[in-house]
């Protein structure tokens, strides 16, 4: 079922849906600009699910919102952001609004507060469809909404109910249906299951995973749950302090992490085989004044002298992985001089942490 009103063909057949090049999203605060997203580069192919993981406050949500242009007043973004070859950052506001919802969708973390409590579910659908297809008939609105809801397992009898009459899991399914009723080619799902209990979580993840079969939707799945990534994502991007430090096929990244941060993040997850709790010392840095060199160096157990002074290069590694880590550089045969390779002393870590 393709709508005829919009151009479904990608600019280059088989090319990526989304191309992100060196994207920056900064906020202004009293203490200076927050570099929430600072030079992020990745591609997304049609139907692909990319997981985005990292600690709280590393810029995951900002990146997700930045892709849709949902930014608070005063925020700025630059770089390149191409959706099907079209540069989103140079589009006019009205164009951006038109693409939101119809081409780029968003699923949020808290389903309980994302539906307008004063509007029926049917009103939400009608409003969304009408905003993008002005001439749509009443019958069409109903038919398409009910179809989207049916896919999510919401019975048509509840179509005219109010949001508060649904449970959290049902509301999240309604939100997904609402995001997909216009068949966007790309959807950002920002921690869609964090607020839900475990059984519902599995259900929602299965729905999201199956979406590409039903709709051929590409997705950026933001989560801090690595289990979800392993289960549902084709590729994974690891974010730290506003930068993507490692990106690659989920299986490859999980079995053979290249960046020290990825490795530490994986070590700190709990699984059945976990015997003790691991955690990463310290907290994510202040993004108004991130550490020099590799942003992770103050907390990194492998930190070398060079890590504190020079930003690591982004390198394509075997297995389709790309990472930016001096330790990985060395492991893949790059020679650094003696001084640069000297381990960063422990004192330096705590000083840097305080600074």
């Amino acid at each position, binding site marked *: 079922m393709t709508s005829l009103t919009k151009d479904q063909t990608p600019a280059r057949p088989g090319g990526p849906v989304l191309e992100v090049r060196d994207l920056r999203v900064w906020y202004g605060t009293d203490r200076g600009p927050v570099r929430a997203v600072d030079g992020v580069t990745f591609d997304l192919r049609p139907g692909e699910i990319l997981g985005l993981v990292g600690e709280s406050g590393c810029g995951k949500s900002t990146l997700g919102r930045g892709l849709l242009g949902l930014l608070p007043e005063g925020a700025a973004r630059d770089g390149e952001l191409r959706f099907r070859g079209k540069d989103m950052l140079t589009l006019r506001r009205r164009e951006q609004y038109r693409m939101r919802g119809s081409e780029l969708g968003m699923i949020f973390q808290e389903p309980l*507060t994302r539906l307008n409590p004063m509007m029926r579910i049917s009103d939400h659908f009608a409003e969304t469809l009408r905003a993008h297809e002005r001439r749509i008939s009443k019958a069409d609105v109903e038919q398409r909404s009910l179809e989207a809801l049916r896919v999510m397992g919401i019975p048509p009898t509840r179509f005219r109910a109010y949001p508060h009459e649904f449970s959290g899991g049902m509301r999240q399914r309604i939100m997904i249906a609402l995001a997909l009723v216009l068949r966007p080619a790309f959807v950002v799902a920002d921690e869609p299951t964090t607020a839900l209990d475990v059984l519902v979580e599995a259900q929602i993840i299965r729905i999201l995973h199956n979406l590409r079969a039903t709709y051929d939707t590409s997705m950026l799945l933001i989560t801090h749950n690595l289990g979800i990534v392993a289960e549902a994502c084709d590729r994974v991007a690891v974010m730290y302090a506003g930068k993507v430090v490692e990106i690659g096929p989920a299986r490859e990244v999980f079995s053979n992490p290249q960046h020290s941060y990825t490795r530490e993040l994986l070590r700190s997850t709990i699984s059945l085989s976990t015997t003790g709790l691991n955690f990463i010392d310290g907290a994510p840095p202040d993004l108004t004044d991130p550490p020099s060199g590799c942003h992770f160096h103050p907390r990194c157990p492998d930190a070398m002298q060079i890590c504190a002074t020079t930003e690591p290069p982004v390198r394509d590694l075997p297995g389709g992985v790309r990472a930016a880590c001096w330790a990985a550089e060395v492991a893949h045969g790059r020679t650094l001089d003696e001084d640069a390779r000297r381990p960063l002393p422990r004192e330096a870590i705590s000083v840097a942490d305080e600074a």
Partner: protein
Amino acid sequence: MSAASGSLPRYILVRLLLVIPMMWVLLTLVFLLLRVAPGDPVTAAVGDKLGPEELDARRAALGLDRPMIVQYLEYLGDAARFDFGTTISDRRPVLEIIQAQGGATLTLTVGAFLFACLIGIPLGRVAGRRRDTPLDAGIRLFGVVSYAAPVFWVGLMLVGLVVKYVPGWPTFGIADPETIFYVPDKTGILLLDAIIANDRISIVDILQHHVLPCFTLGLLLSGVIIRLVRVNLIRTLGDDYVEAARARGIPERQVIRKHAFRNALVPVITVIGLQFALTLSGAILTERTFNWPGLGDTLVDYITARDYIAIQGLVTFFALAIVVVSLLVDILNALVDPRVRY
């Protein structure tokens, strides 16, 4: 707000049952204030006109010589039957006064609310949208000053200006004496009577008389509404469903109108209801300023005459009105906001 069971009729029923204790407390308060503390009502009102025996006879006739508790119970019983007593000074049943003057107070306050909303809602909306701009600061200051300005002073100044620049425009009373004479009294509400009589000239005359007093009282109330709409709009603009609507590509104007602004108005209904007390205070003063033949003006007259029973009767009526308005507001709120019913 339990999600278990509930429907609109059930909610209304529960709310109705709550009215009884609320009324009882308010009536008790009125009785305590007016009857237990002061001395003898009859002496206060007509003590200088009658001799001691006549005063005793009056007291006995009013039942004031009986124990306080009996008087209290009788007072509650009478109030329940909408019998608010008979004035001491001119021997009029208070209910009759309410029927005769209540209409004027009603049209004054309703008109004032209309003006208040007309002024307050758009200004509050603009201030909330343009938060922290000079425009916002200006509107907030207007809100503070319009609330700070004594309503009778604003009325006075307006009267002065109108007399000077719009000669012939009515500045006091509810209508020309001629109009009052010609419009047949059916409902007790002059404007309604004129409409029923389909008397075009009288309607225009009455409406003209309403403009100044309603605008004056409305200005006072608009400050409250500006503040409320502004704060609520700022809150709803930050609500999650507003961002979600933006993410679905709903045009910004529509996001503001259908999501943020509409939801911001819901609590305004409740608070406007709570402002009924302020309205009543303002109405007393406005009526006094414009010689408006309403209950507030009458109350002040009886206070000057030191007529306890009249004061007690009118204050009792006000107390009942407060309870009824709060009930109506809650029901209205339940009709508007689907969450309240559950």
